[in-house]
């Protein structure tokens, strides 16, 4: 996927992060865990002690002091003498609920009283294992690790009590919470009382642990409110945007309007006259590939954010725009569509679809198109960096603190151990904040000014200089039998790949992107081939919530609906016939993943039946201009079906009164958070379906703020989203992203049912709907 000689291991790792089923990445992670997180130590953890040291900033993140007698069995938890249990959330909170769900997994196996737990946000540190909070794998990859961490501490506390009382271990039990009881007497010792003894004991082996049965879980699988809900609702300084450090300067940066552009000349005289502006500092252009390097440009340094913005707007810069100035998205669209009509690289093939097509039977074919999207998280990119004597402290809303350490160190010629990255809350991330370019900008400017610097991106910066979700053209063709069922299916997808961010010559999608809803389909088709055609990127391409699944599910699930219409069959009944009774599909996963998470279409069928049943498919009386659409999709190992109801008036205005989603994500840590994620995903999917479109003219992005890049508001979001979670004993799967892909095709299929108009190009505003 990527030409290794051109990029560092760190960048490869980061690139692969989006591709969650990638074999090498999985192995890498396990290597990390066996080297660090599984290795527990007794006594005071330097790591935990470091994390709870109060950073020199105003953040309201709880940071209790660490007692020297405290018990720290490993990197994830500690128990203080007063019984306070500290649990590290080592992954990023951005609305995904990990500061609640992950610590509750530890607390459950520890039999800790949740009200006596303090959650500590972990700094960037490889001893935690992966902290890359994307790919919907926080619970999935750390479920077992965190349970074992909790169970280890519980066993050591039990042994400490046995030692204290001089009785056999079997006589002591953690019961009910936060105390160890003597089975033969009424004696009890609290966890705080046992902490100092436990800290002297050897760490038990994994084989000695007894994990709870699901019936014994007190927190896992039970709904819980967000750990931080009170602080969030009272406006406490929690976010990257809120960080204030003594002596801090503020910076706004004029980035080159075209990717790869350079400053030809700059006149900063007007900028320097703005009250509060201190100076301007040039930032070097990147050396291709751009990866996570800053875009370059000119920074305006001021004593407040507003002055920096105002000064930046008064810079007079002449740019050398470079080759990407030839990029016009309308013309590019035509090219992608033409490529999608040409034979491409084969991704996966079963049987001989060409032979079936050659027989001259009935053929159904269609082209689909989905544009670039911007992340537009509510908090634009922002970071504070303080460079002192070759040691750097960064406060950043980042999905990837270890990536911040690596990239900042690389840019300043230091070691990643020299970079401390404090992770703030994120005002949304959606994949944008996996890319640390803005933290690197802050570090470079701090180095040059000798002061802590806060780099603030405006909304315009955020939208114009994003790592965009990729634009894609797709072509699908099927030969159908006399019942309308496909005998052969060919699908071809063309998009500038994420790999182009790390290799400027990359034009084909990586195996990861192909695994996101394209290499295989969950349908019973004897002859199948998926292909991928080349496309050159002219903007930075990144990953956005559910990544390539967005356009791939749009095409496949729209086409399934088109086949149902061509066969004159009910779309839901037809979809079930396409899925069949259920089987395991070889989706190209590595053997270990395929064993733990087989691609089981029976589970997909089940969520389709559940969603259709709860939505009253085929039974609910719908008025004129109303219709229902259904779409199913498996992504991040989770099975999802959504039924969308739309009302379309004569002017094409759309209302979505109801979305019904059914989800099978295996065991879920916190069902209320799962509800939230899928409710939100329906809104996110509605945004991209209705109005989501980034275009470019002369290499310059045309959109800039929420007036020309609208996202769903309360009055155009689905009025009500019902989420039904399948009870499951399967291993936990992804939650943050899988709700997004089915929404756009389900909306478009509903619009077809309501109006007879087929949407093959997103967004809806391109089709006369609003």
């Amino acid at each position, binding site marked *: 996927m990527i030409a290794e000689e051109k990029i560092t291991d760190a960048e490869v790792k980061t690139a692969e992060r989006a591709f969650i089923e990638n074999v090498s990445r999985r192995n890498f992670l396990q290597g990390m865990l066996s080297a660090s997180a599984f290795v527990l130590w007794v006594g005071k953890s330097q790591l935990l002690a470091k994390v709870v040291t109060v950073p020199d900033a*105003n953040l309201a993140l709880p940071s209790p002091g660490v007692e020297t007698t405290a018990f720290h069995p490993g990197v994830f938890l500690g128990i203080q003498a007063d019984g306070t249990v500290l649990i590290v959330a080592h992954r990023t*909170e951005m*609305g995904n*609920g990990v500061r609640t769900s992950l610590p509750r997994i530890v607390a459950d196996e520890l039999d800790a009283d949740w009200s006596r737990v303090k959650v500590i946000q972990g700094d960037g540190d490889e001893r935690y294992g992966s902290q890359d909070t994307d790919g919907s794998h926080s619970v999935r990859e750390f479920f077992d690790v965190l349970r074992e961490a909790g169970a280890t501490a519980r066993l050591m506390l039990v042994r400490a009590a046995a030692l204290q009382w001089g009785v056999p271990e079997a006589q002591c039990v953690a019961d009910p919470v936060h105390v160890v009881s003597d089975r033969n007497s009424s004696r009890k010792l609290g966890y705080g009382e046992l902490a100092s003894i436990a800290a002297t004991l050897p760490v038990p082996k994994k084989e000695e642990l007894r994990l709870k049965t699901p019936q014994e879980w007190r927190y896992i699988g039970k709904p819980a*409110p*967000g750990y*931080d*809900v*009170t602080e*969030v*609702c*009272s*406006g*406490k*300084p*929690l*976010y990257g*945007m*809120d960080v*204030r450090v003594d002596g801090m300067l*503020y910076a706004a940066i004029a980035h080159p309007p075209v990717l790869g552009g350079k400053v030809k000349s700059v006149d900063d005289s007007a900028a320097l006259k*703005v*009250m*509060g502006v201190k100076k301007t500092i040039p930032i070097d252009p990147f050396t291709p590939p751009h990866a996570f390097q800053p875009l370059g440009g000119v920074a305006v340094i001021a004593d*407040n*954010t*507003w*002055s920096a*913005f105002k000064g930046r707007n008064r810079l007079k810069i002449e740019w050398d725009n470079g080759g990407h100035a030839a990029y016009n998205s309308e013309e590019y669209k035509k090219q992608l569509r033409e490529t999608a009509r040409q034979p491409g690289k084969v991704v996966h093939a079963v049987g001989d679809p060409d032979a079936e097509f050659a027989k001259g039977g009935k053929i159904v074919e269609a082209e689909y198109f989905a544009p670039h999207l911007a992340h537009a*998280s*509510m*908090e*634009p990119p922002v970071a504070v960096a303080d460079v002192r004597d070759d040691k750097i402290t960064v406060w950043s809303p980042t999905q990837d603190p270890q990536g911040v350490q690596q990239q900042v160190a690389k840019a300043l010629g230091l070691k990643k151990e020299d970079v401390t990255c404090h992770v703030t*809350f*994120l*005002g*949304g991330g*959606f994949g944008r904040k996996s890319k640390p370019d803005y933290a690197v900008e802050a570090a470079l400017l701090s180095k040059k000014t000798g002061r802590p610097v806060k780099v*603030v991106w*405006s*909304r315009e910066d955020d939208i114009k200089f994003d790592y965009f979700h990729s634009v894609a053209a797709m072509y699908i063709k099927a030969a159908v039998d006399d019942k309308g069922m496909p005998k052969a299916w060919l699908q071809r997808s063309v998009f500038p790949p994420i790999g182009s961010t790390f290799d400027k010559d990359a034009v084909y999608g990586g195996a990861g992107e192909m695994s996101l809803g394209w290499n295989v389909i969950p349908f019973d088709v004897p002859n199948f081939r998926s292909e991928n055609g080349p496309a050159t990127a002219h903007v930075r391409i990144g990953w956005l919530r559910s990544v390539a699944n967005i356009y791939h599910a749009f095409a496949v699930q729209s086409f399934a609906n088109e086949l149902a219409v061509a066969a004159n069959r009910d779309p839901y009944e037809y979809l079930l016939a396409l899925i069949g009774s259920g089987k395991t599909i070889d989706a190209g996963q590595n053997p270990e993943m395929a064993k733990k998470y087989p691609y089981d279409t029976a589970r997909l069928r089940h969520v389709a039946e559940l969603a259709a049943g709860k939505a009253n498919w085929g039974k609910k009386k719908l008025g004129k201009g109303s219709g229902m659409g259904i779409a199913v999709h498996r992504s991040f190992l989770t099975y999802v079906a959504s039924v969308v109801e739309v009302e379309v008036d004569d002017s094409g205005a759309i209302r979505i009164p109801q979305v019904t989603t059914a989800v099978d994500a295996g065991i879920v840590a916190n069902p*209320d958070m799962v509800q*939230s994620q899928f409710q*939100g995903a*329906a*809104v*996110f999917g509605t945004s991209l379906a209705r109005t989501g479109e980034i275009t470019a003219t002369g290499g310059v992005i045309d959109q800039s*703020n*929420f*007036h020309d890049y609208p*996202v*769903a*508001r*309360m009055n*155009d*979001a*689905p*009025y*009500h*989203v019902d989420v039904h979670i399948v009870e499951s004993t399967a291993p936990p799967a992804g939650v943050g992203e899988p709700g997004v892909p089915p929404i756009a095709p389900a909306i478009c299929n509903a619009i077809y049912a309501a109006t007879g108009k087929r949407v093959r190009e997103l967004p809806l505003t391109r089709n006369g709907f609003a």
Partner: protein
Amino acid sequence: MIRLKVNGVAQSFDGDPEMPLLWYLRDVLGLTGTKFGCGMALCGACTVLQDGKAIRSCQKQMGAAEGLEITTIEGISAHGPHAVQTAWATVNVPQCGYCQPGQIMQAVSLLSSKPQPSDSDIDDVMSGNICRCGTYQRIRAAIKTAAKEVA
């Protein structure tokens, strides 16, 4: 010299009169509960109360702030949680939470003028506040919960 009150405390300002109230609150006073989202009154993250009514602080220049009485999210939290904040917690509204101070201030303003808002009242008033996480359904439920509490 501009004189105004923020959360009941008298303040004065003699900086750039074009500086929006938003940045005065955040960078000068350090009241960072009021959020920056767009700078164009398109998203509502910067919503505060002026004489009890919701305004977008990114559009109020300090040169025009003489004599204003401004309440921020910190101001309504000063004496324990406001009924709207309690309702927000009960319904567990926030996901990332960044827009929620603005949403809460807008809801406080709505309930002060319409203590028992209908769905369309809520839609009309709250549609200026964007939540990219998509918590609208819970926001509507929390406003109804708060309305019952107040009634």
